[in-house]
């Protein structure tokens, strides 16, 4: 089952890697971040003459693989620590690590990523008993820990590129998301509701007159393609454990995420607002899941008979 998730993220990871290379400003300090990886890359770029964009490819794939490995290790260690049954081979930890790595810049220090994945897996998932038990998405819990502890590392490049990733990244993520749908792992309600919510509330908030001296805002329809919106809509908001099980609740969940995203982005301080929105709606999930259709009474009860 988890092979599908990993395959679905494949196009995202690969194209993200390639276009990160061309879309990001070059100039990250190599010596600070990578160490041994650094040396290999220097060999490839300087001595073998490959393009420096290979650094980014290397960085992204390396980050992603590292994240997945951290995830499996974190799950395994915490399951031993908490004396839970060993389920590290089901790949869910790897998925958490992989998702978190995709939300990080490729030059994120290896130890920062490690802390993020470990805290996500431990505080976001295992303390609640593992699969099926956690109230908030573990990858986003890890992301939050990293954002608040090492904001420079998480936002290693300027906010502008957060706002406008390469369109091919968006397309690749959407393709991956649709592959998840065709394989039957997700329903499209939450992704569609999220994207619709972002669009609708972006349109509403774009009518609010801008403050004096505020930076120029994006046209409202471009909000759909900024930050991690598409990634969160298809891969993170759809995590079944922390999203509703009932159809109507799922629509409202997605709309809530979209609305909160635009609210935070328009009136708050975080440009990359969707992870916050997803976390907040995760907390509201049990309340939303009370919206259930009436049961079809087909068996007469003793009173009715």
């Amino acid at each position, binding site marked *: 089952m988890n092979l*599908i998730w990993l395959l679905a993220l494949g196009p995202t990871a690969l194209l993200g890697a390639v276009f990160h290379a061309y879309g990001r400003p070059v100039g990250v300090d190599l010596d600070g971040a990578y160490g041994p990886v650094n040396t290999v890359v220097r060999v490839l770029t300087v001595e073998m003459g490959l393009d420096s964009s290979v650094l980014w490819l290397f960085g992204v794939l390396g980050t992603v693989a590292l994240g997945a490995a951290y995830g499996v290790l974190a799950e395994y260690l915490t399951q031993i620590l908490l004396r839970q049954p060993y389920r590290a081979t089901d790949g869910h930890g790897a998925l958490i690590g992989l998702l978190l790595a995709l939300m990080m810049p490729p030059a994120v220090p290896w130890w920062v990523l490690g802390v993020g994945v470990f805290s996500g897996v431990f505080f976001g998932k295992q303390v609640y008993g593992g699969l*099926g038990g956690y109230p908030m998405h573990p990858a986003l819990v890890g992301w939050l820990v990293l954002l608040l502890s090492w904001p420079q590392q998480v936002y290693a490049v300027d906010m502008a590129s957060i706002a406008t990733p390469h369109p091919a990244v968006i397309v690749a993520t959407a393709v991956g998301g649709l592959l998840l749908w065709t*394989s039957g792992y997700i329903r499209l309600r939450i992704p569609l509701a999220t994207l619709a919510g972002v669009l609708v509330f972006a349109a509403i908030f774009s009518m609010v007159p801008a403050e004096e001296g505020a930076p120029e805002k994006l046209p409202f329809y471009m909000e759909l393609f900024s930050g991690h919106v598409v990634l969160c809509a298809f891969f993170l908001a759809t995590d*079944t454990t922390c999203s509703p099980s009932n159809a109507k609740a799922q629509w409202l969940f997605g709309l809530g995420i979209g609305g909160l995203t635009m609210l935070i982005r328009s009136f708050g301080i975080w440009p990359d607002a969707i992870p916050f929105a997803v976390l907040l709606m995760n907390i509201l999930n049990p309340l939303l899941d009370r919206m259930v259709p009436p*049961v079809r009474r*087909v068996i007469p*009860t*003793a009173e009715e*008979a």
Partner: protein
Amino acid sequence: MLHEIIHVLQDTFTGFKKSGFALEARGPAVEAMDLPATLCLPLPTSGAAAAVSHGDAIAPGQPLWKRAGVGIGPSPVAGTAGDVIIIPDLRASKSTTAVLVKVAEVAGGAPFEAMDPGAAEPASILKRLDQAGVTTDDGRPIALSEALRGASCVIVLAADREPGVSSAAAVVAERPADVARAARMLGRAVGVGAKVAVLAGGPTISGVDAITLPARYPESLDPLVALAAGGKGVVVVGVQAALAALDAVAVGKVQDSRVITVIDAHRRPVANLRVPLGTRLGEVVTRAGLEPQTGDKLVAGGPMRGLAQYSGDVALDAGVTAIVHVAAADIVESGDDPCVMCGKCVEVCPIRLQVQLIGRFAEFGRFERAGDYELEQCIKCGLCASVCTARRPLVQLIELAMKQLDATRPAAVAQPDEAAAERGAK
């Protein structure tokens, strides 16, 4: 490894199809199965004792059991009584008693006088149903007269209840006019209106009002047919039970057989066999040409609600209308994996229960909380467990919760006597 990758790629593009199990409108024509040399006739209801002993001559229609002084369980054949033995029960992990009857060389005639189903007195029709041992044909058999008691409307289900099974369809194809006659007769017997339920796109029955059911599981299960018919007190009678009732009245014969669809390990129907009641499972398996290997399952009942048998000695009763051979490689094991709250069970449940919550509460022993979600409305169709991402034994969890709640509070559900005694006894 390559195999797995190919399967993954296939799943990637086919996984989003809705799981809809189609019901069969047609099937192989009915084939007769010869009477075995010895019939093994199980106890028809709890609390009865054998009324014959080894060596007694048996006439067709003679009761083999006695319960509270009343003779029940008529023999379908002429013969000699053998031993009273213990055999495994078809539906519970317990044993039951059975009378062996060595079938006579010469068949006896119909033991009861033929009556006109359109003109006979209702009371005598009901009495004849009891004399002829006519029972329901879905699950543990109960006397048809018992099941009809208090009905406000009788619906004869002229369709199969489970996907892949076509025994009812084959029987309807054999004698469509009799289905309408049987429906009218049963309606008269109880003094209420009678209808027939047919599948959309399937053969129609003329001569009686019909309701049309979507040709999709579980729409033909009794509680949903009753719901489709509207109104309280609707009683659904399977077509095989209805025709046995008609024959009991019009011909005067005892209920003596059921048509059973035999489905092989490749999920194909091998045959619709008219199996004499009292035939052992092993005998039907041999006759149908199934060759079960070690580790395979033989399921008595349909693919969704049937129960795997551990012995070929078990005697088939009037509640079995399908036998499914499941190859060991196709067996999907349920486990103790946690619920991932994917909501597929909720989407697929025809009763709109919060199956994921009921399952989780039952798993952790919080049965009172499970009971807050109206789990007594569950019709045990098995769709939730068949789609569960985590392969949880959801039907068993719901049944566990029901039994625990029954033990601690008065019965929430109105049950015919037999079923209530059944649940209480376990």
